[in-house]
């Protein structure tokens, strides 16, 4: 390392642009901050020696220089921005609407958006934000954040710690705000210092030379907010592991008790009641809204009891359930227990619960019952033995019946939304059964020769709640990251690092120079106030944009 000794005696690290102590421009290094041929000095990092600007030989140096460049950082941000825009042209795959022809992305995009949709799908834009290259881009931004911050923070910290009130004239005269005053009384200097003190500047005096400084901590704002962002990115990586984050979705019927998925059979849930409420349509205040929509929901709520299984780890044992929580889960009011949170996310009204039937003779116009039975639609039995001796075999069950294009019966989903059955009825002591097809509004005799008919007596309905179960241990990290980001960004944006140098030269000349990292208007006002009643010349802004 070739240390640079300044004429003021301070020893600077290699690559220093402005002496850390007196600010004198180091000869031969001025190109680094672009000071050559410029009237004003680049004060962005106080002319400190940044690794990226100093060492450029080895491959590591080159990678370091690459990622420490703000220009590269901005490019990465712009690329992420453009990629994000492309991801919103058509809906992402998770937002393919329910009413789409097919929810299969391979079909949906071309069907709805034609050739552009096909291209969108083939380029993988339909899952843009989980694509490897998008994630890589974000990761590169993360690397850039770390390297940029380290590259600047360390030398800047050094430079600000080593700064001295006495500055070289070349440093002062090349500040944006500068003035020279002659024949200044000491009392005027005192007034100036007092004025700055009143504006809460901290005064450092050494050998009669003065530095007034305030808000230095704002210089660390960018590094603090970058730490916050890094924490957020790390939390995002952690969230991809099942230890930190799991998410399940379950449908729970009213009255049903079931194990909560994703909890290792440790917790059970019972749905006491699902409630859907709507706003009062006669409410005068909202008449205009009700013209457009007849019903506006006001509440989705599931009243649940959560149980803990006391002996969940005993294989084969019937779990002993102990209620631990009663809660009305609503939107904006999830239920929390242990590390899990339950969210109200969906519902299905009036799902078929039970259907009861009776058997009668086909030609009996009074339909006199020869025995009845009830099918539990979410848990049907395969054979129903009737008291009267009839036996009904459930040959086929279609919970959500549809007729396929080639004329075969099928079930669209596993939910009993439109139940249909093929049953075989065996009369008492007979081995020969009769096949019937039963459904809502359907009662088809397969052969046309059936002696007995099965009729629907009653249907019971119940609601189903869709509940998301999530266990997210990363939330505190995201929150901490966000808070640190906010602190950093406020620290850096709402305060400014202002410095005023007051240096006496030989022959009673006073050099006044000032620098701030932002809000030049503010620092000018501070100085203006402080020099108001003195003979000291107000600093001149040497960088006004030409008029």
């Amino acid at each position, binding site marked *: 390392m070739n240390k640079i000794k300044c004429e003021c005696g301070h020893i600077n690290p290699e690559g220093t642009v402005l002496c850390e102590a007196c600010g004198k421009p180091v000869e031969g290094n001025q190109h680094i901050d672009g000071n050559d041929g410029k009237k004003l000095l680049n004060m962005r990092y106080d002319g400190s020696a940044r690794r990226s600007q100093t060492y450029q030989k080895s491959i590591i140096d080159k990678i370091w220089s690459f990622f420490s460049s703000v220009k590269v950082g901005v490019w990465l941000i712009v690329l992420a921005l453009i990629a994000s825009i492309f991801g919103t042209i058509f*809906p992402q795959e998770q937002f393919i609407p329910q009413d789409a022809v097919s929810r299969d992305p391979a079909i949906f995009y071309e069907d709805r958006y034609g050739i552009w949709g096909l291209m969108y799908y083939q380029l993988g834009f339909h899952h843009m934000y989980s694509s490897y290259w998008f994630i890589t881009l974000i990761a590169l931004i993360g690397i850039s954040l770390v390297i940029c911050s380290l590259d600047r923070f360390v030398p800047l910290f050094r430079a600000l710690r080593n700064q001295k009130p006495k500055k070289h004239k070349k440093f002062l005269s090349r500040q944006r705000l500068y003035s020279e005053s002659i024949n200044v009384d000491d009392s005027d200097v005192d007034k100036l210092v007092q004025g700055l003190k009143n504006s809460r500047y901290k005064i450092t005096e050494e050998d009669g030379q003065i530095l007034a400084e305030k808000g230095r901590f704002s210089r660390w704002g960018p590094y603090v907010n970058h730490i916050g962002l890094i924490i957020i990115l790390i939390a995002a990586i952690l969230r991809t592991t099942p230890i930190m984050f799991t998410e399940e979705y379950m449908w729970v019927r009213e009255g049903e008790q079931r194990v909560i998925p994703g909890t290792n059979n440790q917790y059970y849930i019972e749905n006491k009641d699902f409630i859907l409420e709507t706003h009062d349509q006669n409410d005068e205040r909202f008449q205009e809204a009700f013209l457009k929509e007849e019903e506006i929901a006001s509440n989705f709520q599931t009243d649940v009891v959560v149980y803990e299984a006391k002996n969940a780890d005993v294989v084969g044992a019937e779990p002993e359930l102990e209620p631990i929580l009663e809660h009305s889960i609503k939107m904006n009011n999830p239920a929390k227990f242990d590390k899990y949170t339950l969210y109200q996310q969906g519902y299905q009204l009036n799902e078929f619960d039970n259907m009861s039937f009776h058997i009668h003779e086909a030609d009996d116009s009074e339909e006199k019952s020869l025995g009845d039975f009830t099918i539990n639609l979410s848990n049907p039995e395969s054979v129903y033995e009737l008291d009267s001796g009839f036996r009904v075999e459930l040959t086929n069950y279609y919970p959500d019946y549809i007729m396929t294009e080639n004329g075969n019966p099928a079930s669209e989903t596993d939910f009993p939304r439109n139940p249909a059955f093929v049953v075989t009825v065996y009369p008492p002591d007979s081995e020969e059964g009769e096949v019937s097809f039963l459904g809502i509004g359907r009662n088809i005799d397969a052969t046309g020769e059936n002696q007995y008919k099965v009729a629907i007596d009653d249907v019971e309905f119940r609601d189903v709640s869709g509940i998301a179960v999530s266990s997210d241990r990363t939330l505190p990290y995201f929150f901490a990251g966000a808070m640190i980001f906010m602190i950093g960004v406020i620290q850096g944006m709402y305060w400014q690092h202002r410095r005023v140098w007051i240096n006496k030269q030989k022959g009673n000349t006073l050099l006044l120079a000032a620098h701030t990292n932002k809000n030049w208007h503010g620092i000018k006002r501070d100085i203006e106030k402080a020099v108001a009643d003195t003979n000291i010349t107000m600093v001149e802004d040497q960088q006004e944009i030409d008029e």
Partner: protein
Amino acid sequence: MDLYSISSGALLIAFILYLVATFFFGGAIRQDKSERHQKTKAGSIGLVITIIGFASQLVYFITRWMLTGHAPVSNLFEFTTFLGMSMIFAFIIIYIYYKTAFLGVFALPLATIIIAYASMFSTGAAPLVPSLQSNWLHIHVTTVALGQGILFISFVAGLMYLIRQIDQTKLTFRNGMLEAVIYCIFLFIGFIVITTIFNAVSYQATFEVDRDGQAVMAEYQLPPLAAPKDSTLLSENVMNPWFEAPAWMHGDEAGRKLNTVIWSFFTGTIIYGIAFLISRKRIGKRLHPLVKGVKPDMLDEIMYRSVAIGFPVFTLGGLIFAAIWAQLAWGRFWGWDPKEVWALITWFFYAAFLHLRLSRGWHGEKSGWLAVVGFAIIMFNLIVVNLILASLHSYA
């Protein structure tokens, strides 16, 4: 008087006062170098009128809140009006700090256009659906609007910088682009004017649209130039549509939206043309003398500082509060919904802006362009994402 009339009356008063204040700020612009950036009587009057207007708008806000039982930020009209209000608020703060009357000449009319634009949407109050029933509605939405209001000031300062600094003596690419930005503002005015005219005469045309075999009604409040796809006109004595909306535009509302866009272009262009004929020069050139007395440094500083102040507020409201609420309501703090993505795009953009300010050569004019583009992104998120891209936030 009922609350509803008080509320709408107060909003109208605010609207008028903002326009009146604009003229006072216009009178406060000093061409004389020595008197610049000093308090002037006209400027002070302008500020007082603006503050009274703001108070009046606050009355609108509070009475409407009392009326509906929730903060009026839940539909497009309410949110956009509130955005206009926060723009005025940001302007008042900046004025108190910088004493910049000249800023009012541009900021007030632009904010007023936003408020007028808001009133073109259904002003009826709607009860809150379950997902919106949360205090986070107030916290999240008001913070976002405040952040955007402050960023709006950077747009105003940036626009003024461009008008001030770009050479208007001959037609160049740069002042052509500037003129295009100004033309876009005229399109907003066109939308407002044409909607107001046809609302005043209660124009209505109804179509029956075939949607997968089902008949759906589509209501037009503007004469139909573009009909919905596969539709029949039901109304009589209205003009016959010239063409049908193309098939790739989806949704029952696509035809009506396209029709509105066409009308806005049409009217905006005519108004721009009239303005052009009256001033007999490009509008940018016409406005140039108005800002000649303003120090460009000052504009650059205001532009940068409002980004520096607005960016954290926007981050807090648009990303952090938004994520907290999304976590509570939907169980996921981030879901790549278009509105969320566009908030992230806005954030990326201003982050890039702040980083570019670190390097030389990005102050001044380049920053001015960035400030304009940044605000265009915000408006895109407000208008296009709400009205065109499908989103959980489509509450128009």
